[in-house]
């Protein structure tokens, strides 16, 4: 909320510099987010009077005015506004003036007519929001007086009020807080509301003219009739005040209502009494009841919306917005002034359900001081009497009861010390709480405190401790080291597994990415039926990712557009498996482009990524008993299922053409990390290093194309030869050996762990294996 420093000063002494005020508040948890200087002295702008006005000879929309600037000579000014008449007093910026928006005024010719300055609007002078026309000054303004005389400089603070502090949503409320924090008393006159004498003395409260059918939602309601008001423009002083904090001026009645809200925090509302049919009833809306609000829109109400109604229809959504039909207009003669206390939760629900937040609902839902309801009514009434020459009735119609004061709160000094962590003298605690308007009711170790009506947020001892801490100063408390050992958890182990994956893959030259778990409607869907959000905000985030591939492909496309030639990426993160959005932790890998990112003089083998780069990356994760099998996947050419211990853990393959923008083959894999590695034994153990040498023998063979490496391997390895330690494929080619054939070369390593092998022993075993290959696979062995 925006606060005028001048306005605050009416209630409390403030530090000279706005920064000091901001600092005082911020340190106490009332964060000041902005400081803005307004209406500062603007040189060369004076009060002037328009003496003549005529059409511009060359432009329909411009007029040529003659103005009196008090110097004795008239000035000719070209002007675009239409809201004035001859005789009005307006601000005149003379050549040389520099306006707050940066405009520098110079003598100039506009469409051929000389203009010796500029007539200004409120917004041009930084004095309000109104940009529609010239700022009309009061008739009593002295011609030739600097504009600064009429608009003293002010500073506007933009203060963030936390939702628990509804009592700070007014100048009086914030001033009261500043007084408490700076240990001073709020100005006496501010406490004697309404400020000034009530004409004819205090009005009588009468249970008439108003009923409440929904007492839970509206504990108290007051209505005062004020007759013969003159609706019209608002005097400059009041208008300047509300405009300085961002409220637009409408007419004097509405402006007064807003003024009282900004001053005291109590929203009030004025009805055109002539348009009300009979007495007021505060009731719940009928289902589907239509209501035309002041914003010009029709709302369809529900039975949990509270309305202010006359005998025929709803005339206001309680605490939110008044009705268009009963609003105050130029022709209004008599008004009915509402000031009430509404249940915060009810107002909040209604404002939210109707998507109709207002300045009033903002305050009601954060809690308005019940004790200020009638004072605000008096204050508004006095202003309407003075400004709009209304005649208030001697009585206020009321219904319900003003809610009682909040319950007392007990606070033990010992607990305060315990929560804060240092010892604070009971005397200091008492002093602080007293400053905040609390009253000590008992003098024991656990003192009972009476809470002021405007601090409904103070409900338990910790709330009082926070007040003590705020005023005492958090920064005076010395930090303390409370480190202690904690056994590691399942989440620790899970995290460490993920870190190990990160390290493995990044060491292999893959880049970790983190993509959004919310995916767009246009994203390539992997796994249909992604769980949709019920209330997406943008097309970019409409569903929960069922797979990591959507994100990885988005990253690929972005990088391809940026002319990156090697995209090797991976992500470890949660996916949401339809239909119930079950959360699983997956690893996704995507490879595209050159396996080597930049040409290099040492590297001659520059190949594009292929399936085996992908497979190698997955194999590097040391998944137990991993196998790859041909599978079935709509989005993949070369669909491959990955198994660990005979359980499917994921898939790998090449994306079908046309699925992405990138030219060339894109290889992707996705694995359920916890299925693949969840039970993995992290414990490693030593095995004796082999003492005896190995003997290696190679076998080169030509076999029909359809015989797989796996088939050859099992022909070599089964039945098991105890001396055969390992088998490596080290060559594979298909060129120059005839169609549908391939040549492979394997290195077989033999060893006995307990002795040195003889050449004869190895030859015997090796011959058996060679024979098996020839017999079982029809392999053509090469010498």
């Amino acid at each position, binding site marked *: 909320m925006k606060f005028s420093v001048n306005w605050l000063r009416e209630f409390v002494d403030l530090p000279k510099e706005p920064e000091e005020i901001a600092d005082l508040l911020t*340190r106490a*948890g009332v*964060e000041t987010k902005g400081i803005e200087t307004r209406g500062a002295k603007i040189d060369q702008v004076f009060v002037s009077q328009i003496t003549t006005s005529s059409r511009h000879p060359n432009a329909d929309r411009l007029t040529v005015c003659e103005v009196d600037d008090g110097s004795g000579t008239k000035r000719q000014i070209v002007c675009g506004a239409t809201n004035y008449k001859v005789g009005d007093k307006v601000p005149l910026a003379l050549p040389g003036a520099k306006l707050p928006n940066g405009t520098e005024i110079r003598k100039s010719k506009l469409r051929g007519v000389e203009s010796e300055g500029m007539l200004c609007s409120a917004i041009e002078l930084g004095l309000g929001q109104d940009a529609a026309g010239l700022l009309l000054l009061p008739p009593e303004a002295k011609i030739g007086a600097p504009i600064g005389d009429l608009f003293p400089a002010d500073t506007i603070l933009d203060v963030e009020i936390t939702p628990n502090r509804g009592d700070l949503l007014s100048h009086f409320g914030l001033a009261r807080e500043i007084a408490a924090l700076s240990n001073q008393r709020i100005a006496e006159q501010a406490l004697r509301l309404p400020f000034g004498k009530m004409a004819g003395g205090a009005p009588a409260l009468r249970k008439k003219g108003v009923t409440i059918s929904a007492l839970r939602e509206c504990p108290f309601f007051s209505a005062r009739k004020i007759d013969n008001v003159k609706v019209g423009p608002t005097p400059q002083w009041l208008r300047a005040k509300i405009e300085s904090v961002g409220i637009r001026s409408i007419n004097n009645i509405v402006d007064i209502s807003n003024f009282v809200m900004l001053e005291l925090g109590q929203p009030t509302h004025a009805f055109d009494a002539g348009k009300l049919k009979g007495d007021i009833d505060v009731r719940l809306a009928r289902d589907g009841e239509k209501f035309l609000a002041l914003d010009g829109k029709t709302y369809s109400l529900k039975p949990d919306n509270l309305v202010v109604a006359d005998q025929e229809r709803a005339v206001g959504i309680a605490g939110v917005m008044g009705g268009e039909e009963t609003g105050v207009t130029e022709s209004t003669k008599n008004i009915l002034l509402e000031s009430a206390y509404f249940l*915060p*939760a009810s107002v*909040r629900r209604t404002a939210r359900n109707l998507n109709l937040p207002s300045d009033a609902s903002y305050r009601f839902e954060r809690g308005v001081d019940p004790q200020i309801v009638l004072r605000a009514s008096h204050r508004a009434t006095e202003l309407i009497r003075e400004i709009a020459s209304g005649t208030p009735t001697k009585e206020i119609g009321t219904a319900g009861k003003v809610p009682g004061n909040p319950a007392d709160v007990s606070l033990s000094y010992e607990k305060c010390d*315990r*929560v*804060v*962590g*240092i010892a604070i003298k009971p005397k200091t605690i008492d002093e602080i709480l007293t400053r905040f308007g609390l009253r000590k009711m008992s003098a024991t170790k656990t003192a009972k405190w009476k809470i002021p009506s405007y601090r409904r947020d103070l409900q*338990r001892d*910790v709330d009082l401790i*926070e007040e003590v*801490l705020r005023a005492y100063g*958090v920064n005076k*408390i010395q*930090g*303390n*080291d*409370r*480190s*202690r*050992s*904690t056994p590691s*958890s399942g*989440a*620790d182990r*899970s995290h460490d597994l993920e870190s190990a994956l*990160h390290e493995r*893959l*990044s060491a*292999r030259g*893959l*880049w*970790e*990415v*983190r*993509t*959004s*778990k*919310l995916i767009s409607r246009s994203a390539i869907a992997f796994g249909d039926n992604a*769980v949709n*959000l*019920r*209330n997406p*905000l*943008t097309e970019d*985030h409409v569903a929960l990712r069922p797979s990591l591939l959507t994100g990885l492909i988005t990253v690929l496309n*972005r*990088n391809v557009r*940026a002319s990156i030639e090697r995209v*090797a*990426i991976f992500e470890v993160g949660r996916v*949401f498996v339809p239909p119930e*959005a079950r959360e699983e932790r997956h690893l996704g890998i995507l490879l595209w482009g050159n396996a080597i*990112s*930049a040409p*290099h*003089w040492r590297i001659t083998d520059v190949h594009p990524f292929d399936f085996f780069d992908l497979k190698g990356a997955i194999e590097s994760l040391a998944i137990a008993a991993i196998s790859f099998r041909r599978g079935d996947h709509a989005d993949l050419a070369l669909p491959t299922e990955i198994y660990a211990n005979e359980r499917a853990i994921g898939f790998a393959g090449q994306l079908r053409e046309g699925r992405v923008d990138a030219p060339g083959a894109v290889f992707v894999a996705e694995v359920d990390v916890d299925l693949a590695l969840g039970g993995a034994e992290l414990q490693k153990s030593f095995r004796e290093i082999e003492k005896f040498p190995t003997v290696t023998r190679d076998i080169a063979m030509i076999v029909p194309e359809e015989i797989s490496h796996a088939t050859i391997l099992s022909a070599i390895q089964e039945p098991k030869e105890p001396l055969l330690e390992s088998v490596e494929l080290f060559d594979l080619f298909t060129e120059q050996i005839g169609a549908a054939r391939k040549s492979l070369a394997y290195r077989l390593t033999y060893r006995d762990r307990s002795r040195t092998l003889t050449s004869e022993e190895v030859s015997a075993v090796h011959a058996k294996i060679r024979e098996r290959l020839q017999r079982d696979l029809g392999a053509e062995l090469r010498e």
Partner: protein
Amino acid sequence: MHPLEQLRDDALREIESARDEQALETARVKYLGRSGSVSAWGEQMKTLASEEKPIVGKLLNEVRSSVTAAIDLRAQQFRSQKESDALTKIDISLPGTQHEIGALHPLTQMLERSIQIFRRMGFALADGPDVEDEWHCFDALNTPPEHPARNEQDTFYLPDGRLLRTHTSTVQIRAMQAGPPPIRVIAPGAAYRRDEVDATHSAQFHQIEGLYVDKNVSVADLKGTLEFFMRELFGADTAVQFRPHYFPFTEPSLEIYVKSKALKKGEEWVEVCGCGVVHPAVFEAVNKARGDKAYDPEKWSGYAFGLGMDRLAMILFDIPDIRLFAQNDLRFLKQFA
């Protein structure tokens, strides 16, 4: 001088002056070859008188070994020279052999750094789901329906009524439901906000939640922990300021601001963390769900905090736009390798 000594001196001189390996080989053959002059002396030995034999024999051995040593030395010199000659041709300004490397995303780096700091202070990890229910996200955290801080407008809902957690504070509740106090955990994870996306707001962001519940946990303990964290992260001379704030689930509530010369932001206070003393209503909600009084607010107290990882990474790495994190442009990622 014995003729053998003369022979040795000649041989050594010749070896010394050999210009190349071929000249050296010629010298070797000349002196040590089968018909070389040193070998010839071996033959001559047979003709010597028996009393002369041991003296000349000893001398002959000495001569042979010193000539052999000289030849070996000279040969070694030639080999070294050859090696050096070959290597001096190598252009050591050529670029070194590259090996493709990858790296972790800056947010992951930020998370890891933070987790390491908290682990040093004895925090274990905890975890909870991204898809939550309203009770864990709001009610249990002292934010009942119609509470002004319960921002359903800013919350993503699933069709079944569940929601995407708006903060990782849900894990506080899950951790306390799972076991009795004392509890000392951090929970890194994603949170979501239904908010306009711009340079500082994204629909999904990352937090580290912290919770410590024990006997007599105070604001001073909270300060000690987070001051330590901030100084570890931003440098020892980091200024840390705690300002009162409001969160429904902590009381007192605080916000942390830091100022550090190490940061590009310079001498400006930047907000980095929300924290506070766990509100007794949170303990009461947990007790109700547990069906016991394990978290009796009169016996136990605790502090909780939430650190915005995206924000911290932006501050620490001077990253101007939060959207860069989710874009994963490799030119961006490579800056943090």
